[in-house]
């Protein structure tokens, strides 16, 4: 298969899978088989692309120009490859999980659920492969729209309210700020293509560049920078597989990935470093890291706590991008993948607990660990990886981010990272510890509680094993990340 065909097929396959799900909607087993087959095929295709990409092959494809000079075009570049790998590989794991979860929890409207899920994956891949800001924006908006039915899935008043906040904030920031920033970029640079070294360098007064960067930073609402983070906790009304893949991986990573691309390929890291465009703005990310962690500590609802933890972790990536030194960019790109595997493990575990015990609150989990050892074991691994301890993958990205802060002389930011690590320990680690060692409250007995369905366990085991694997074998990821940061 030629490079273009392979890339188009990868983009279209989830969509075709979505159609297949609709067609086979009346036969649940067949429908789920279609999802599994499509997801596995997508994973294989993404891996094929990755191996050929690492061998130096060039992937480019253009669909035409809606507006003269602005094409709908796709091109693969290293940071996009990381994002595509994360989204493509975790889809199959999440599908396995989702089948167990949605059936175990007796959810309805599963055809709609799996269709929207497939479309969302296609959009995420579209974002990853975009060759210019316009194409990226196109899929960025489609991703918001295709995930809305998933957020409002249960159709209750609460879910609809969450859906409204979700749609309102994401579309609001993207149309009000992001689109404006894109149009200004186009007027100034005359192009929207992603280019190594950026397209704005030398065409813009640094003070204005700072304002434009602020438009991007807050306009890319999916990166969940405070004060535009409220949609992410609101999205937690969705079923757990959605929170796990989309709101810990695909949607939010689409946000920080976009930010990464804007930094490195629209502004150009050299331009940012030489003019200090982001000098003040990096503190917005630093503030989000700390504030979101502090909010997370106050949340008793497990998914809400994880959501705020995600908000905080996303700003690690944003901060790394804004520091713009090579090491910081490597850390930033690696954290896209590392956080994905750790956080999805945590969400899987939260969902497993919910399916088996219908418990949503952290304070109810005491002593549950002995009844569900695998679930809480996975939770522990995810926690340790988020904190950044060896032997878990999360160590590497934090390592490079911290070195980046040192390298650019931002010792205060290094302090922020360290305090945040302590906060991570404070709000995440007690959960598995209390589950294993504390006595159940008010004399509850968990003798009758068994582990979650097998598909759920399988998914958790895969992702937590990957967290460990990435510690010992981070090399492919590191290579991609350093390519994304501007050459090996």
């Amino acid at each position, binding site marked *: 298969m030629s490079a273009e065909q392979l890339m188009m097929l990868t983009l279209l396959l989830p969509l075709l899978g979505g159609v297949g799900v609709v067609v086979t909607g009346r036969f649940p087993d067949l429908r789920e088989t279609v999802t599994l087959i499509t997801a596995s095929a997508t994973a294989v295709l993404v891996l094929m692309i990755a191996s050929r990409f690492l061998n130096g092959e060039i992937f480019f494809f253009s669909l035409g120009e809606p*507006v003269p000079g602005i094409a709908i075009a796709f091109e693969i570049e290293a940071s996009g490859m990381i994002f595509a790998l994360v989204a493509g590989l975790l889809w199959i794991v999440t599908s396995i999980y989702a089948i167990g979860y949605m059936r175990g929890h007796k959810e309805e409207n599963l055809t709609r659920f799996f269709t929207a899920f497939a479309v969302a994956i296609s959009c995420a891949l579209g974002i990853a492969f975009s060759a210019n800001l*316009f194409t990226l924006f196109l899929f960025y908006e489609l991703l918001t729209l295709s995930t809305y039915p998933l957020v409002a899935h249960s159709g209750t008043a609460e*879910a609809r309210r969450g859906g*409204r906040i979700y*749609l309102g904030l994401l579309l609001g920031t993207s149309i*009000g700020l992001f689109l404006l920033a894109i149009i200004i970029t186009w007027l100034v640079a005359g192009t929207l293509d992603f280019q190594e070294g950026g397209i704005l360098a030398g065409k813009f007064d640094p003070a204005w560049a700072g304002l434009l960067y602020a438009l991007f930073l807050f306009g890319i609402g999916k990166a969940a920078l405070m004060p535009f983070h409220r949609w992410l906790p609101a999205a937690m009304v969705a079923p757990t597989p959605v929170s796990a893949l989309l709101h810990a991986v695909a949607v939010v990573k689409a946000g920080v990935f976009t930010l990464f691309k804007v930094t490195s390929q629209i502004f150009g890291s050299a331009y940012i470093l030489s003019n200090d465009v982001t000098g003040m703005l990096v503190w917005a990310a630093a503030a989000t890291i700390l504030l979101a962690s502090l909010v997370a500590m106050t949340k008793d609802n497990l998914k809400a706590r994880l959501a705020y933890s995600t908000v905080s972790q996303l700003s690690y990536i944003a901060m790394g991008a804004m520091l713009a030194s090579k090491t910081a960019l490597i850390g930033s790109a690696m954290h896209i993948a590392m956080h994905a595997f750790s956080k999805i493990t945590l969400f899987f575990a939260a969902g497993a607990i919910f399916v088996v015990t219908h418990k949503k609150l952290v304070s109810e989990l005491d002593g549950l660990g002995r009844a569900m050892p695998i679930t809480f074991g996975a939770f522990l691994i995810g926690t340790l990886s988020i904190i950044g301890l060896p032997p878990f993958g999360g160590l590497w990205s934090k390592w490079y981010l911290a070195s980046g802060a040192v390298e650019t002389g931002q010792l205060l930011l290094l302090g922020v990272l360290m305090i945040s690590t302590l906060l991570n320990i404070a709000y995440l680690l007690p959960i598995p510890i209390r589950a294993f060692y504390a006595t159940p409250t008010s004399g509850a007995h968990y003798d009758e509680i068994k582990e979650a369905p097998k598909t759920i366990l399988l998914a958790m085991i895969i992702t937590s094993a990957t967290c460990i694997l990435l510690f010992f074998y981070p090399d492919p990821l590191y290579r991609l990340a350093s390519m994304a940061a501007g050459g090996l």
Partner: protein
Amino acid sequence: MMQEHTSFLLVVLPLIFAPITAVLPRGRLPWLATLIVTLTCAVLAGMQLLAVIDGGVISYELGGWAPPWGIEYRIDALNAFMALIVAVIAVITLPYALLSVEKEIPEHQTPLFYSAFLLCLTGLLGITQTGDIFNLFVFLEISSLSSYALISTGRKRQAQTSAYQYLVMGTIGATFFLIGVGLIYSVTGTLNMMDLAARLPEVADQRTTHTGFAFIMIGFALKLAMFPLHLWLPNAYTYAPSVITVFLAATATKVAVYVMLRVLFTVFPADFVSATPTDELFILSGLAGILITSVYAAYQTNVKRLLAYSSVAQIGYMVLGIGLASTLSVTASIVHLFNHALMKGALFMAVGAIIYRIGGCHIDEIRGLGRHMPWTFGAIVIGGLSLIGVPGTAGFISKWYLVVAALEQQMWLVVAVILAGSLIAVVYVGKVLEALYFKSPADDMPAVKEAPLLLLVPTWALVLANVYFGLDTDFSVGMAGRAVEALGVSAK
């Protein structure tokens, strides 16, 4: 032979067939006659467009009387494009009309209904073809009178009061226009547009000319439903039969925009217009219209009314583009004119399909209907996205051009309002979609089936056009560019 009479035939064919249709027996025959006439018109309009697409001009002398004494039909890229939009929308509307009209109009009225429809088409096509400003008034009255009649055939009794309201406002508008034309005639002694353009510079500083200009502008602002002269429109669109709402929303206001463009850029000299506060007023009206009527739309509980208010807001975008008065902004206006015809056509058709099934479109009546009518629901989703201006749909393209045009002139407030308008559109479109899909249906709701194919196919033709023209803009933007060239908008 045919070639040279094209522009005339476009007007005369529906005019001749209107009385014939009125005397045809009840049943489907009047519909068939109308369909054949509109199809022919669409083909003719297409041929006409091909003839002038390279910048040529067709001049047709009615009755062989040479202009400026006789009436001249003068076709350039802009007229031809407008005529094609009107005729094609009419063709797409008609298959849809068959079932919808059978359901909504008493059978004995159908021949008259189609006759009035043809008259309305005559008027609208006539406005686009003629190069004579008094003749334009005549066609304006033909289209207006027939549309009052068409609106009053709506099923609810309010249809008659809203037709009456429209009649009063429309007559005031037409009278103002006529007074303006009279005043201009008194100083120039001509009614031919090209002749006017040649003679008006001499009399540009006379008070009569200014007064006449003001009358013409206000008169057409009423027909155009330019904010704040839009009060007739929401009622008229809400209570008219579904087919008529589709047709008028997609064509009537668009033709009025065309007349505005013609008068502002062809008839009156550029320095005359720029010496008046016209541009500023247009920008002001556009901005206020976008914000205020969008908010109004968000508070509506009747879906048709909601879309009607949104139409006024969308007209605000076109008015804004005219007010900015640069090549790019006027191009944006014309592109939006075309795209808005597509999106509102699709949306009103989809809502019409809901009315066909359940007899109403109140936000509480349609709860949960999306599951029973998935295709109709899908049409509303895509049409709504286009209305918001999501990339990949036609609506995005026109807003993109408009924002770029505003940025070109450093009009930051305008940019902010355009984007804010999109955001409010998210609210009102979201409101409809949420009711259709996520609210649980009322307990006593009978089982509803998907709309018949004859309603769905035209709807989806427009829906797909929304996506197509969001991805490939060679035709829409290209035609708008040529039309602006034909208008001779001075570069700003």
